[in-house]
């Protein structure tokens, strides 16, 4: 599945596409919600790996507007719960992710994103 936690790590890797190649933009996505066990320590500790602005905009693209536009300094339990939902419980099952820079389309089907490139696109 493509959860937003994974989406936040992915970047376009087409040959020569090195700027503005993150974040990929969701297109025509189908979303499924799956409950996951809440682990506040995991969420709190992993947060420094995330690009907040990219996460907020990706969440909007899949229909979730619960996160504040700026990353708050203090992480209270309510916010950790929201983050847990956005990062771990929203699954993109089908659709695509598109690079804003080179327009390369990475298709998603049955929850598996296809990051393979054609021979001539490999850097």
């Amino acid at each position: 599945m493509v959860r937003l936690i994974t989406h936040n790590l992915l970047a376009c890797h087409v040959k020569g596409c090195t700027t503005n190649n993150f974040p990929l933009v969701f297109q025509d996505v189908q979303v499924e919600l799956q409950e996951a066990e809440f682990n506040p320590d995991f969420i709190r500790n992993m947060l420094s790996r995330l690009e907040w602005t990219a996460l907020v905009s990706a969440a909007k693209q899949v229909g979730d507007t619960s996160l504040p536009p700026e990353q708050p300094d203090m992480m209270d339990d309510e916010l950790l719960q929201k983050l847990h939902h956005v990062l771990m419980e929203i699954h993109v099952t089908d659709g695509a992710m598109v690079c804003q820079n080179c327009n390369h389309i990475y298709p998603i089907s049955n929850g598996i994103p296809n990051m393979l490139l054609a021979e001539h696109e490999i850097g």
Partner: protein
Amino acid sequence: MKPVKSVTIIDDPQVHEDQHVHAVYDQIASHFSSTRYKPWPIIAKFLSDLPTGWIGLDSGTGNGKYLPLPADRPGSILTIGLDRSRNLLQIAQHAGSEPGCPVTREVVWGDVLGDGWRSGVFDYTISIATIHHLASHDRRKLAVQVRATSRLLQAVSPVHGRVMIYVWAIEQDELSKRSIPASDTNGSDNPMTGEDVFVPWVMSQGQHTAKGKFKNDVETPVYNRYYHMFAKGELEQLTVQAADEFGLMVGSRESANTKGCRGVEIIQEGWERSNYYVELRRWVS
């Protein structure tokens, strides 16, 4: 004992790899997966020692058997599985699920030589029984393997990133189901070049393949998988070359003379149950 055949790559390496690695695993995915469920102890320990909140990449995840770990603290880290075989990924996607309690894993269809991630975003990468499948002509072989290793180093944090690599060894233990023809292992002048072989995968009766079920009166299909079997010292040599290519010092952080140097330390290396392994940590002085 299943015999292992020595092989020389004469066709295009990419075509060779597609035919003798990617296509084979897509065909044998289900049967292969049913025989691969036990994690290697050293990798299980590596994952179980990682701090809560760390995110990693399993590059060449296969059936995803490492994705649910650590068993004693499930959900304390997140490992994303990447593989070239889509059929294996469909299995990996539900690795560790119990009947009635399905779990979904994060999996990505991609190549281990690819680079579809923000640079240095992971805390750890593991590459288990994968790099030995990368094919190319003799002279360029090292180049491809070095690039794959370099990708692992590049994917992790420059400050604290950890990497664990396992590859198949020429030195097989007595528990191994395979026999290596003796003449094939010492035919080379250079002891550090390992050996290219085909390892047969025999579909057991009644196993499903992607194309359907085999009937008993049909001959049991055999698929030949391409392997490069590593010689002693070869994995370490590979690591040093990859670090070099990526501009990293090899050694401990204390060995750096000035501040701001980037390096990688070999934490442990060895041989376990027919495989060579190496554990690495990146550092900035």
